[in-house]
């Protein structure tokens, strides 16, 4: 098992290097001049623009620029600076913390609500409550995050405070500790909850039809034990796969939620940096995201072995 993990981690190295090069090239290929973008609607003073271009190596060929960047990262642990001379490592440290908090909040909500509802629906298959849950998840899937975000912010953030005077769900920012993440976490979890509910339901319904469940029931095990120990555990593999992959999505794809709730997170930073063509920032963030995907996948694979003892890694 240990060797398997090490092998997987070694395999990740070329993936990471490849990703940095790819992203570097893509940002390079974006149209427009990043220095001009700093000056908004005004044409920058040509002399000033030239000094800045020189300073950020923008006049050098692409591969040389990439070498400056990657050698800094590899040999000095220096992720470079953005166009305001703020170190990328400083930018990333703060923002990944916020996004991680948000993603974990969302993931916990997804797991608890999604699995809970799915279990409930699977056990009441075909009944009115099952149909209602399915209809509700369909609704959740079809309403965009933008709408749930704004509506919940207005109702639970603004209106609730105006009525009660108490700041239960903060409207924006990360000033109220973990409470700041409740509303955005829920908005972000919405889609995942819907998918996970349906996935849990289908997977469990499938498993409960299997022969070993009939055997377990025939052995005289309690219903609770049959469903929990034999049914749910076997049905868990697709759900764990989904949650693992979703962690990556939640980390990098929360742009809209982060913007609505003014969370200084990584999705938002990525969006801004692509807009400003800040190569070092974009590459840095994407590399860390790739790393998170790789690690999350590795953890998911490990979990398979825990959930299903027949799976072994050499």
């Amino acid at each position, binding site marked *: 098992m240990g060797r398997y993990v090490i092998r997987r981690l070694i395999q990740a190295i070329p993936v990471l290097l490849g990703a940095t090069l790819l992203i570097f090239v893509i940002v390079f290929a974006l*149209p*427009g*001049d990043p220095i*001009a*973008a*700093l*000056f*908004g*609607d*005004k*044409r*920058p*003073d*040509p*002399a*000033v*623009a*030239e*000094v800045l271009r020189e*300073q950020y190596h923008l006049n050098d060929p692409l591969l040389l620029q990439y070498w400056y960047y990657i050698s800094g990262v590899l040999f000095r642990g220096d992720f470079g600076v*953005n166009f*305001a*001379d*703020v170190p990328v490592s*400083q*930018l990333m*440290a*703060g*923002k990944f913390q916020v996004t991680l908090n948000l993603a974990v909040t969302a993931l916990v909500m997804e797991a608890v609500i999604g699995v809970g509802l799915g279990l409930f629906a699977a056990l009441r298959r075909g009944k009115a409550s099952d149909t209602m849950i399915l209809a509700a998840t369909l609704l959740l899937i079809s309403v965009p995050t*933008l*709408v749930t975000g704004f*509506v919940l*912010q*207005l109702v639970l*953030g*603004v*209106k609730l*405070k*105006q009525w*009660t005077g*108490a*700041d239960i769900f*903060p*409207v*924006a*920012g*990360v*000033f109220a500790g973990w409470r700041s993440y409740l509303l955005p976490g829920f908005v972000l979890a919405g889609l995942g909850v819907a998918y996970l509910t349906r996935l849990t339901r289908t997977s469990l319904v499938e498993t409960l039809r299997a022969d070993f469940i009939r055997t377990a029931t025939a052995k005289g095990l309690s219903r609770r034990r049959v469903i929990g120990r034999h049914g749910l555990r076997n049905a868990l593999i697709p759900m764990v796969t989904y949650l693992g992959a979703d962690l990556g999505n939640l980390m990098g794809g929360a*742009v*809209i939620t*982060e*913007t*609505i*709730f*003014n969370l*200084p997170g990584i999705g*938002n930073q990525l*969006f*801004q940096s692509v*807009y400003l063509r800040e190569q070092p920032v974009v590459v840095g963030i994407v590399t860390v995201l790739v790393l998170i995907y790789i690690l999350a996948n590795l953890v998911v694979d490990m979990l398979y072995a825990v959930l299903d003892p027949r799976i072994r890694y050499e």
Partner: protein
Amino acid sequence: MRVTKGAQIVAGTALLALAVAACGGGASDGGGTAAGGSETPVRMEIGEPQELLVPQNTTETEGSEVLAAVFSPLVGYDENKQPVEEAAESITTSDSKVWTIKLKPGYTWHDGTPVTAEDYKRAWDFAAYQDNAMSSSYFFGRVDGYNDVHPGEGKTPTAKEMKGLKVVDDNTLEVTLSAPFSQFKTMLGYTAFYPLPKSAFGPDGKVTQEYGEKPIGQGLFKLDKPYKKGTDQTIELSVYDKFTGAKPKNWTKLQFKVYTSSETAYNDLQAENLDIHDSLPASAIAGAKAALGDRYHDEPDASVGYIGVPLKYNPEFNNPDIRKAISMAIDRKTITETVFSGTRAPADDFINPAIPGYRQGACDACTYNPAEAKKLYESAKGPKTLELGYNADGGHKEWIEAVANNLRANLGIEVSPKPFEKFQGILDALDAKEYKGLFRMGWSIDYPSPENYLTPIFGTGAIETGSNYGGYSNKEFDALVAKGDQATDPAEGLKFYQQADDILIKELPYIPVYFYRSNFGNSTKVKNVKLNLLNQVEWADIEKA
């Protein structure tokens, strides 16, 4: 120039632009009051400052707002929009060429050391020096010796200091300009002209990163702790005890809260988590009037929106009658009321109403007159197809489409709006001769003088180095502006500027479409919120309710 709103808030707002008119409505009934031992700060919305907080490198609105609280400018502006001395005791000249600036005694840096004339000279020389690549360098272009420190692209500076700056004594600075400029005093209120303390500079002669995170100023507020850009969501300040100017009556703590979307900030204002929001989103305006009542403010803003004409690139537009016909075919009133929900006003002069020298209704051809427009356009044989370029990242699509519809309907021609990714893209395409249609253009002032609507946009000298993107050139116009610059009496200067303005109105090198308005709101916790001519909050006037 402050055409750049912080890039962050522009991008964030564009991202959420899909959700037009999602918020607003409903009456607000106050909300809870925060209790607690320590003082609750006055909280103001900003977008993330684009650069570190160095005055000489801050030419966008958000960083300027913060720096305006930390620094005291040489001049402020009075109710008649005239410059009045603030950190300066007196600013005098006899010929508009040599200016003597005497500093008001008693000003100290936030570390306690006195402010001297040397601090001004040092900062200005630093800003102008080419290799420092400060975004505000062009502000010093009129100072004698600027060309030695800033010779232009590809050339090496021959001096480190401008010879036009002379420290006479600790409290006196003498500035010699390369040519007389009557509006120089008005310029001095801008961010670029703040001084810098000696401690701002590192051993390499550059402003340190540390200073950019916690600038030491000589103004009303000092920063409580360094602002870590990208990590911190607030900038915390408190009143500087030894500040000798006007101070707020009943509060001492100020907090800037960084937002990426103005919609979100508006929701926070309604929930009383924010006290001042000075860029209310257009989608919220209708609701804001009802929800905020007399806490909603609508004041003239000194910016102008135009349709630019590429005179230099496209001879089709050479006949002024064609430009006049296009101008008369635009229904400015309807566009400002519907597309902009009243956050803009129809333009009727090249000089904005917020600035001295504006004359209401001066531009005849800015009045909507479709019948006359069509007649004029046909007799002048205007082009049968028109293109309207705009940058797609700034919320311009809607009004450009509206103008296109006006032109189609009223002139009976083909009009196609053409999006560019960024404004710079339009200029590049014009230069590369890939595009030669009309284009959207906006202008915010650098300093509140009528001259600022003339020289930088329409002067012949601004084709190379300024913002004269259309390439308009008129000797008579240049001469009148120069006469205004040389005047020693402000009233006389104004007369010449207005005559130059008359030429623009007659020739319409650009077509003014709208004047911006400042739409801002405040919470129930503060009162007496006012913005100055540079759109910065007058902190000393604010009272806590």
